[in-house]
């Protein structure tokens, strides 16, 4: 594979990264794991004039830690999918994220690909955004004037576009922990069982308090131009007492369908995607409500 010529920069610090980003035009691309960017360059759909390779920044941005307050998990943006899958902390506290990370691409891709790359590529089909959205995650962005925090539901702008300011870099992702009993689930529907993009993906998260659903979040992959929450469906379930009536779940499922705006592509029709959003939402919710082992996510082609 021969690529067109480009300038190649390997900054040592995050500050340097933002400086380079600011001084170069829009044709500068940030290289993390490369599992999206290099593929596009090979295909010729992206022709960068300059690439900023984050490899020297990786050691400082590759971490998964519990905040001393015990109320926050911090994940460095250059943490790989495999780091997430194998992290005891993630598996115990927010297993839905391990599920989502575990069904990205193949083992090789999960070893290279990073959480930050998955978010900043801003593809509607990405697997970790729905999981992070239902966890109420926030993005910590580093820019020339310091850091700011952006809730993840305001992070995505359009396919391939984020709401980062020029010069900003995703530093880490924060996941708040409430300490209440909860359960999440990510289900991915694909044409084949590995190494495939989500035809649709559904993440659901329920939090329980006093035999009531105190919080409900649902989010989709490949159901809209960006990863999205299904707010109306969440409203149906929030503050509902347990056990849930079947009809309540059904109305949440049909609300979820109305929240989705998938498109017809050669991979699947909009109609089929909508049908699958219903099926996967119901299954994901039922899974959150069950006490079965996490590995028994019926119907999901997850690892």
């Amino acid at each position, binding site marked *: 594979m021969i690529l067109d010529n480009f300038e190649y920069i390997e900054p040592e610090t995050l500050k340097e990264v933002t400086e380079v980003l600011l001084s170069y035009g829009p044709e500068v691309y940030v290289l993390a794991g490369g599992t999206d960017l290099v593929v596009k360059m090979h295909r010729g759909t992206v022709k960068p004039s300059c690439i900023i390779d984050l490899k020297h920044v990786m050691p400082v941005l590759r971490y998964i830690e519990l905040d001393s307050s015990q109320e926050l998990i911090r994940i460095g943006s250059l943490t790989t999918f495999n780091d997430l899958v194998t992290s005891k902390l993630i598996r115990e506290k927010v297993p839905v994220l391990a599920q989502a990370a575990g069904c990205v691409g193949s083992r090789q891709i999960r070893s290279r690909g990073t959480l930050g790359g998955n978010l900043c590529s801003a593809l509607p089909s990405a697997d970790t955004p729905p999981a992070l959205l239902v966890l109420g995650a926030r993005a910590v962005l580093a820019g020339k004037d310091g850091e700011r925090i952006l809730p993840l539901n305001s992070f995505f702008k359009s396919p391939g576009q984020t709401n980062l300011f020029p010069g900003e870099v995703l530093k880490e992702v924060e996941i708040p922990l409430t300490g209440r009993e909860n359960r999440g689930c990510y289900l991915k529907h694909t*044409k084949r069982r590995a190494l495939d*993009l989500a035809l649709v993906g559904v993440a659901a998260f329920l939090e329980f308090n006093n035999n009531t659903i105190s919080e409900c979040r649902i989010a989709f992959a490949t159901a809209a131009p960006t990863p999205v929450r299904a707010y109306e469906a969440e409203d149906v379930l929030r503050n509902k007492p347990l056990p849930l009536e079947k009809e309540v779940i059904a109305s949440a499922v049909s609300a979820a369908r109305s929240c989705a705006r998938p498109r017809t592509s050669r991979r699947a029709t909009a109609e*089929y995607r909508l049908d699958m959003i219903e099926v996967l939402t119901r299954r994901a919710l039922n899974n959150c409500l069950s006490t079965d082992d996490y590995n028994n996510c019926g*119907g999901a082609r997850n690892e």
Partner: protein
Amino acid sequence: MGVILEDLEQEVKAIHADQNDLNVVGKRIKRIEALAKALGTARYAADLKRDDMLIGKALFAKHPHALIKKIDTSRAEELEGVIAVMTAKDLPGRNGYGILIPDKPVIAEKKVKYQGDPVALVAAVNEEIAKKALDLIEVEYAVLPALDDPREAMKDDAVLIHENHPAADKGNILTEVSLTRGDVDKAFAEADIIIENLYETPMVDHSYLEPDVCIAEPDPITGGLLLIAPAQFVHATKRSLAPVFNLPPNKVRVLSPVVGAGYGGKEDSCLDVCSIAGVLALRTKKTVYFELTREEIFRNTGKRHATYIKHRLAATREGKVTAIDVETILDKGAYVSMGGLREPTHAVTQRTVMYAGGAYAIPNARAKSYSVFTNHPYSCAMRGFGAPQAYFAVESQMDELARKLEMDPIELRLKNIVRDGDRTIFGQVMKKSRGLGLEECIAKVKERMEWEKPLERTAGSRKRGRGFSTFLYGTGVPLPFEGASCYATFQTDGTVSIAVSSTEMGQGLLTAFTQIAAETLGVDFDNVVVNISDTDASPDAGPTVASRSTTVVGNAIINGCTQLKNRIMDFASRELKADSRDIDIKEGKVFIVGKPETAVPLGSMVAKAFVNQVPLSATGVWYPPRPTFSGEDGQGDPMHAYAFGAQGVEIEVDTETGEIDIVKFVLACDVGKAINPVNVEQQMEGGAAMGIGWSLMEEIDMSNGVMKNDSFKNYPIPSIKDVPEMDLIIVEHPNELGPFGAKGIGEPPTVPTAPAIRNALYDALGIKFNKIPFTPQRVIEEIKKYENKNS
């Protein structure tokens, strides 16, 4: 069934009674090339690239169907680092090649007929400059409407793709092959039951992992060319391309190192890359490296023929099939490739006719197949060569018949399969002596499937179903030249060299050939080396296709080795003072039979023979009975032997998502004799996995001649998770003419999978799926249609 199995066991024991003294053949020997491949040290053609080679690139057609008005290469020629730019007018010889007929241009001159037609070639000092040069070539086109559907393309008013095709029958119809047997109209008039359906199968890609590459090196002494490329038929590559280079064939040498799979595709794709690299090398007088990108491989190289099949089947109330009437339309794509001409080279088109009646003795048959040009990639050979398409139709039809008769589908098949002395629809008598293990295959699959037990049909949204299918599949090509030659040589230390022009492409042929040679000569497996795929090192063994190599080439190796063995035994008889008929060679020793004390190491006997003017090389040859097949009535004896098989699957369908889980997968193949059972099992697994991909997910998406899914991202092939654990059964009914009884196994396992899954789907859902692939979306759409119709 138990009784049948017991009888079969007896029969099988009798069959194998004389094969118990084999030392190497039939053993589970590890692949010779496995370790090097696993370590990454095996050298494929692309690994032979050197920095001092020029890089070739081709500018391919911008439109799938268009007239070329003007080409301006001047700006590309001026670019520094560009050594040559070529258009059709710069070619040294004939602007056309092809295995059957030279209808595919090296560089399109006046017209492009699909996306893969080159319009200009570049050789440059590196890839970057070569790519830049392509951008500087200006081509003016007059766009023509592109034809996607052969059913449209065969109409009289369709735009003509080839103005003056040297072989086309009429308009865009390349060829028509017919088969007639008995009185079909009468049989249909008298039938108790008629089953009629339309079937569609998609165009799919071979998806071999190794890319198509060619290194072309001018020979400064002869003025000829060396072409190094992954190929499935080195001698035909040489013959087809020599006129392109304006060279006699003896100045073109084609060499194919280990090949990273071909599945039929590299019979043609090697011509594509070798022609381009070759003309650039002659032009520049330098070594040229040319490689297709994966996207180019998708768009340019051959595909499995898409088919549209109308299948009618007539039967009696008792379940005896009395007639079939079948019409098949094949999407030929832009060029002939292996699609087929008139007799005797009707190739893929012929197989769709030949296998239209499956593995059954059907007295009356009419089958007509039309191969029609479109603006698609040329359809070529692909594992099964037209048979998977034909069997998808006929095995689905058998299932429908069983359903209509409320008869067990296996019982129905047993009423109709060919048995010793029966004729197929193409009129060939099936002989037990050539191996006829179909009934044993069926019995074994039935037993392993626990077919007698009622199926547990799970409740709720997951539904279970079972499906079954059978096949017969010919070994070898039904062409008048069918046969093989090789060289067998004793080195003076008693080790053995076999030179054969076949290709090792992952099927395990090196190991099987080594076993055959070692067994024949009575030497250790480790003392034989097989040299492959070099036109200058070995005579023509024919193509490495058609499940033919182990059998046809294997026999040539036995012939060569037997000549050597006889010479050594003859010489030894003088040395040991015994009649040569009392001498034998085993385990590397020459001895008088019954007198182990006379044993002499083979090496010293061979060395002695050498200094006594005994020639140590022999040409081994073998020809099967001459194949016959008439393009008029489709009757003949096209292959000397047939492999048989049966498959059962149990599936679970998620009726909410449309996903299909294969929960049980049993495949039995009668291979005559498994020279290496490990190889046979791997062929069965690989072939079946390909069948699963064809059934469940693969489909090239063409729109106005443009390929919409020309990458692996958009063209899924099965992952390891999509392939179930398989229960594989090797059945051995020896072929009296095969090496140690062998018949072919390379392609057959791809044949029965799609109809078996289709029949299981019908069983699970009560819905007919007559179009492949059964993607989750298509399954849901059919379920919805069915529910709407029934509500």
